[in-house]
């Protein structure tokens, strides 16, 4: 049970079992507590995974008042599956063209003070919502995000992403959180104050990384964002190069667009300005290093220079193994580390391409493409 000032807001709702999708209030089974949260899940052709997502939401230790699926023009059975599971399904007049568009469409349907936004391919640990909700202790806290771990870890790309998440969320994000500036409240799983979302006009469509935009805007308004490492979500990550490329392209363009958009205003936010600057430097210089300096030196002088690809191995291995050991996944993490090395070289190429297109060719990415 929650032990926060907000716990006074909680009450156990006793109502008939949901039988009609228009009856938006849900009954908490087994006397579980209801919280004033609406969960919104944008979905486009997600029939393969949406049932798992909804089931994980229905079995949360803290019950959300309402679960809304935004069926963004799916051509498969997404909507039917959702209805059969007893959640609310809303449909925009036409495909909104992006996750942010679908989420904004749902914003006017939300009547609770808190909104949980999660992706249609993301399942939650049974107490994830409870843990995020417990972190909403101060009025200034407008967004809370959790730890992300890939649901499936089989292919090279999923393994690379698995290591990337373990490393980044165990080390970098914890430090960002300690200094009260998590870089992003992850788009795949975050709890927001609904009035904050309304205040800023919802999820912006001006960049390809609306979660980063929303987080940085919060800091500029003097608001706070929290990271709760114990609240875990499991998204499905791109399983092949085709989809991984799309996702990385969107993220790289999104980051550059956000830096361009917020460059003046983030100068007023201590710590954020530092981490964004060193990130810009590293993302650009490391990419050039991986793609040109190391190959040239290894051909011209000695193949030993290929060691440059693993020179920062401790930075990757230590945090990854710390978390993996805690989760009893040491072997899985160890065998996945080479995949991460491949992923980041690919990532470097995509980042440099994005940098060139955004800054030199002035060709910003404007079309949202799904990453799986």
């Amino acid at each position, binding site marked *: 049970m929650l032990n926060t000032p907000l716990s006074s807001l909680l009450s156990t709702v006793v109502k008939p079992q949901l039988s009609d999708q228009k009856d938006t209030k849900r009954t908490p089974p087994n006397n579980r507590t209801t919280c004033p949260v609406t969960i919104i899940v944008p979905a486009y052709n997600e029939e393969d995974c949406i049932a798992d997502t909804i089931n994980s939401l229905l079995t949360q230790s803290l019950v959300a008042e309402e679960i809304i699926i935004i069926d963004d023009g799916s051509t498969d059975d997404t909507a039917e599956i959702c209805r059969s599971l007893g959640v609310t399904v809303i449909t925009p007049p036409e495909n909104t063209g992006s996750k942010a568009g679908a989420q904004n469409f749902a914003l006017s349907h939300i009547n609770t003070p808190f909104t949980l936004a999660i992706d249609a391919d993301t399942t939650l640990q049974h107490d994830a919502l409870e843990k995020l909700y417990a972190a909403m202790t101060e009025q200034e806290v407008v967004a809370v995000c959790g730890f*992300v771990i890939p649901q499936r870890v089989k292919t090279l790309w999923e393994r690379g992403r698995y290591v*990337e*998440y373990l*490393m*980044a*969320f*165990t*080390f*970098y994000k*914890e*430090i960002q959180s*300690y*200094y009260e500036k998590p*870089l*992003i409240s992850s788009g795949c799983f975050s709890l927001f104050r609904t009035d904050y979302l309304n205040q800023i006009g919802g999820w912006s469509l001006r960049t390809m990384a609306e979660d980063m935009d929303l987080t940085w805007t919060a800091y500029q308004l003097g608001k706070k964002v929290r990271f709760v490492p114990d609240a875990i979500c499991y998204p499905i990550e791109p399983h092949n190069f085709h989809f991984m490329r799309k*996702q*990385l392209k969107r*993220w*790289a363009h999104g*980051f550059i667009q956000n830096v361009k958009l917020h460059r*003046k205003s983030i*100068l*007023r936010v*201590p710590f954020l*300005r*530092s*981490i964004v*600057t*060193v*990130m810009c*430097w*590293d*993302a*650009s*210089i*490391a*990419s050039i*290093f*991986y793609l040109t300096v190391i190959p040239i030196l290894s051909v011209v*002088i*000695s193949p*030993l220079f290929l*060691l440059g690809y*693993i*020179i*920062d*191995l*401790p*930075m*990757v*291995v*230590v*945090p990854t193994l*710390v978390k993996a050991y805690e989760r009893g996944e040491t072997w899985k993490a160890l065998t996945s580390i080479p995949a991460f090395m491949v992923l*980041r*070289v690919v*990532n*470097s190429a995509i*980042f440099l391409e994005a940098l060139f297109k955004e800054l030199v060719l002035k060709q910003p990415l404007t079309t949202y493409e799904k990453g799986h």
Partner: protein
Amino acid sequence: MNVGLPGAGIGGLYYLICTAVMPFKEIFLTLTKPKHQFRYRLVFTQFSISSAIIIGFIAIYQLVSILFESNLSLQISISNDSFLPSLLLPIVISLALLVFILTLVELSAFISKKRIKTVIKK
């Protein structure tokens, strides 16, 4: 380093420094704010991770030095006399670069703040 973005160079160094500052910040907060509770678990975990990373870097450096020395006859010696300076050199260069970049950012922030104040006064 962040998910979806490559690179862990001076950024990595910056985060290591941030971790080193954490225990002192916690002591300061505990002494100055009566309600503050020392975040032992978080500080200890991050400090341990950072320490292990630094030890890992020293081990890698030694390995690379041995490989290069034996294969390329490069002047990267790990003898008692020169080990520390040659180990410190890349760290000093990276630190200098980090300090330079962060100083530029802080200067930009200062100028931006002054400009805003001037505009408000006008």
